[in-house]
């Protein structure tokens, strides 16, 4: 047990060292939300993820791409095939060249990735006052305490304190590094009309879109959690069995038996 403790201590110290490293110039410590997907038994909240998809589609997608997300992935958060086809068909993607060699566009299909709102980085910057809206596919994993961070960022807009020098076109948000962000507050009460009738408060929409983005960042999360329990139970039983075998096999050694003089 001493050994396990030592390993645990070493690991904790290592992790503390790593996470401590970047606390310095990050913004305010994010609000801590009790997410359905955290913890060893954590799962996605399908209803919330579906609402989050609606928020993403209706609000965020005008600026942010989601390039690792394919329409067919929507099946995992509970949408049927026809729904997915219909969602996809709302968008256009580049098709094959036609008989005259000219480029064409076609309606998106479930196999297609979510189309980016801008053709390239320059176009994205030009529409956003020089700032680049990052692709959100991995955002929950690309920031410390990602889910809590994105949530806090979305609900954290505030008036700048009197002594704060806000740059032109910038918005005050203490959770962002440097406390000012080029993205204007994207969510305000009633920004979407939830299909399931949930009141669309800012907190609710922020939670839902984070739930959806968590699914996009880590689609295997549920499978991983479920498999983990099985693997850990298996390893625990195996280890106990090995411990008992060891005790039995070692008995003669502990009794001082000499194995070499016959």
């Amino acid at each position: 047990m001493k050994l396990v403790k030592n390993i645990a201590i070493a690991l904790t110290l290592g992790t503390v060292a790593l996470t401590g490293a970047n606390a310095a110039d990050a913004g305010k410590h994010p609000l801590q939300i009790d997410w359905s997907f955290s913890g060893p038994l954590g799962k996605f909240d399908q209803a919330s993820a579906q609402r989050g998809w609606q928020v993403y589609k209706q609000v965020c997608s005008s600026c942010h791409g989601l390039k690792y997300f394919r329409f067919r992935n929507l099946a995992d958060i509970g949408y049927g095939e026809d729904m997915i086809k219909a969602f996809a068909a709302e968008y256009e993607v580049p098709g094959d060249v036609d008989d005259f060699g000219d480029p064409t566009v076609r309606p998106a299909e479930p196999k297609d990735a979510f189309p980016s709102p801008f053709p390239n980085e320059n176009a994205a910057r030009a529409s956003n006052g020089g700032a680049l809206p990052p692709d959100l596919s991995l955002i929950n994993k690309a920031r410390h305490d990602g889910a809590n961070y994105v949530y806090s960022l979305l609900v954290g807009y505030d008036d700048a304190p009197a002594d704060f020098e806000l740059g032109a076109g910038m918005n005050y948000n203490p959770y962002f590094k440097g406390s000012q962000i080029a993205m204007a507050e994207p969510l305000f009460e009633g920004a979407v009309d939830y299909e399931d009738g949930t009141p669309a408060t800012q907190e609710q929409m922020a939670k839902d879109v984070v739930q959806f983005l968590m699914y996009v960042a880590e689609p295997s999360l549920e499978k991983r959690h479920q498999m983990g329990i099985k693997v850990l139970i298996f390893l625990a039983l195996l280890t106990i069995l090995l411990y008992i075998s060891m005790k039995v096999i070692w008995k003669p050694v502990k009794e001082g038996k000499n194995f070499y003089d016959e």
Partner: protein
Amino acid sequence: MAEWKAAKPENKVLGWVEERLPILSLVNNVVGPDTPTPRNLNYWWNFGSLAGLMLVIQIISGVVLAMHYAATTGVAFDSVERIMRDVNYGWLIRYMHANGASFFFIAVYIHIFRGLYFGSYKAPREVLWMLGVVIFLLMMATAFMGYVLPWGQMSFWGATVITNLFSAIPMVGESIVQLLWGGFSVDNPTLNRFFSLHYLLPFVIAGVVILHLWAKKISDSGNPLGIDVKSSADQIPFHPFYTVKDAFGAGVFFFVFAMFIFYMPNALGHPDNYIPADPLVTPPSIVPEWYFLPYYAILRSIDFPLGIPGVFELVDAKLLGVLAMFASILVWLLLPWLDTSKVRSGNFRPLFKWFFAFLVVDMFILTWLGAQKPEGNIPLYGKIATAYYFAYFLVILPVLSRKETTLPLPESISNPVLKPAE
């Protein structure tokens, strides 16, 4: 060396093969029933076999990753995401490999510090120890290049910072850096050669592990008392006793490993590596993987030249830092001659024990310092921790081994009655 015992398999086919290629005898004599091993090995002796298992896991998971990975700057990041999303159990293989590197280092670090405490580097095990240091250096190179492969922000900037260190070497530095890069900055050719070497080096490690085990066979395992085996009563067969004990240890170790894979797969990584590499955006802080942090701290602590600053600099600050970083590991090679105490085990060295404990604490402090921004008092702490690190090897051990009064050693392993002090 224990005598060689030929295996005589009952099975005709095995016997036929065995006569022509005595591979069963080889196993039998290294980890088998005919491998007499000290009967008093404690759990610290488990970590050698654990390191071996981790190497196997890294090679197997790595080969599978390589089937789907594309070492081209434009698509490397995408290909890793495809592994995570579209390849069956790709997420499992990748999380195993990424966390496996950390657990490989945990096992090897404990294995090394076991050696430092119990004097495993002393005669007759000098070559065994030195081969271990070679394995560690190869592991560091392998892990460094592996971390570059997913081509995230930390991959790119870590590679840039570390390869740039070589430019400190006088005359040839720039050429070495260009050779590593395959051009004039970290770019596609760099990624390609790193992938090639990342695939190759683990097999070189496997080769050195075989030499390491061969040397172990020649000198036999040490033991926590640090005294020689006096008679066969001191020994037990490796199999089944240490095979079952190693298996139990592996169960515990893999349990912790699995906790990381399944429940905190990204805890040991840096979130910036989920941002695709961008040569135009420098991350706010460039932090290496945790297992490199002590050496990174040593590197950054040396910010002064050898000589009189500005007047006469024998070695400039940058080069001195790089030299110190490499020296901090290479100094392990000299250990058998720096520590000349006849007593191997720290258990019988009352003063050594304390200095060793401080070294362990010092390593943790250096790890922590390596992750901090070099501001405020951090550089000062870094200098103190670095000074102790080198003093331990270069001053404390040589002096201690002459001055220290050691405790009386036991008569033998099987009969641990203390014999009077010499």
